[in-house]
């Protein structure tokens, strides 16, 4: 898909999406750890975590089925679903969150007033509030990612689809005067997944890995009946969503 820029040049418009293969996911939490390291996510501490204040941009949702002794444990990694029709944006009174032209729902920390309407509106509960100034164990503050800002107290944050990595890939492609290649943008979670269960790419490109996988008969999206139209697509052999 292309779009005409003002200088008459045709420019490719990307629509970033993610595919997570639940039949491959082992629930190992590597994506969760990689995401925290990449995106400078602070530690809440034991006490605050018990109050549900720990911040996760991606979390593993466990699904327990059956009754003892016939139980089955399954896992669903849940990042921001990057809805095409995001409920969070509609409730923000200050325009601190918006969907950009590449379909990524972004958070403008400097505009956020911390009302948390978006956190409540999100049906996937993937938005997190910074209750305190961010803290890291001593020494770890030297390992912060300079490409990602440290969020102050009192703002909401969420998965950005690693927008810093998208930006870098897009700039590299523009420098070389070519479109971003399939598989060139790799978010931290996708990069680290040891089971190769996660994929990322351009849904506007019908030949991309994510587009191909999204056409699979195993493909479904979370809470599809809400009409949020997420760009995170899950693959599963069974009807996961109905049972979850």
């Amino acid at each position, binding site marked *: 898909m292309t779009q005409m820029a003002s*200088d008459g040049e045709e420019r490719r418009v990307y629509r970033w999406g993610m595919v997570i293969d639940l039949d491959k996911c082992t629930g190992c939490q590597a994506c969760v750890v990689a995401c925290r390291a990449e995106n400078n996510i602070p530690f809440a501490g034991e006490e605050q975590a018990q109050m549900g204040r720990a911040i996760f941009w991606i979390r593993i949702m466990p699904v327990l089925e059956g009754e003892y002794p016939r139980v089955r444990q399954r896992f669903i990694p849940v990042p921001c679903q990057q809805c095409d029709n995001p409920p969070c944006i509609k409730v923000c009174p200050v325009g601190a969150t918006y969907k950009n032209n590449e379909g990524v729902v*972004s958070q403008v920390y400097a505009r956020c007033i911390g009302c948390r309407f978006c956190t409540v509106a999100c049906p996937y509960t993937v938005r997190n509030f910074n209750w305190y100034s961010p803290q890291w164990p001593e020494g770890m503050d030297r390992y912060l990612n300079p490409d990602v*800002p440290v969020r102050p107290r009192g703002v909401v944050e969420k998965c950005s689809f690693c927008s810093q990595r998208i930006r870098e890939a897009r700039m590299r492609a523009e420098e070389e005067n070519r479109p971003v290649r399939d598989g060139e943008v790799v978010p931290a979670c996708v990069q680290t997944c040891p089971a190769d269960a996660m994929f990322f790419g351009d849904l506007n490109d019908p030949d991309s890995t994510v587009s191909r996988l999204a056409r699979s008969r195993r493909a479904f999206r979370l809470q599809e009946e809400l009409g949020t139209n997420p760009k995170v697509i899950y693959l599963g052999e069974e009807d996961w969503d109905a049972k979850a």
Partner: protein
Amino acid sequence: MREFAAFLLGLLIIVGGAGYAVAYANKAEEVVQPIRFPHAKHTSLVSCQTCHTQVNDTPHAGLPKIATCMGCHQADVSKSPEAAKVRQYSDRGEEVPWIRLYELADDISFSHRFHLKQGLDCQACHGAIGESTQWNTGFGKNGTNGPSGRDLMGFCLACHQGRGAATDCVACHK
């Protein structure tokens, strides 16, 4: 009497405040570099990239290292006493503590290399700093002759909109 005292106090606050604001604003604009460096003299001989060596390869243009200066100033190419300071720094094994004139906010992702590859020249953002004959006369912090620190985003956006470049927040903001 009381009203008069209150009036005097009020006057003092207003005049004092204004005076402080003016003094503070001027202080913020004035930059005294360790060496009285005339850009014009250098740009008539070499290109910007000769001294700002990293500009084509990295996001940052870089301030010149003493070794770069000494490439020319090893010999007494200029009879200026200011140029002699370069050799003094070098003899002491020190870098010249240049003061950065242009600073971006922490949450901005900006690449010099990328913008140069898009066909922009240095002057598009840095104005006529290359023509300064005095040591940065008229070139304050965040360049009075380039983008202003107060409305830097407006300066960037005007160009981005005009050229059809990205205007999405996360295209530049981290």
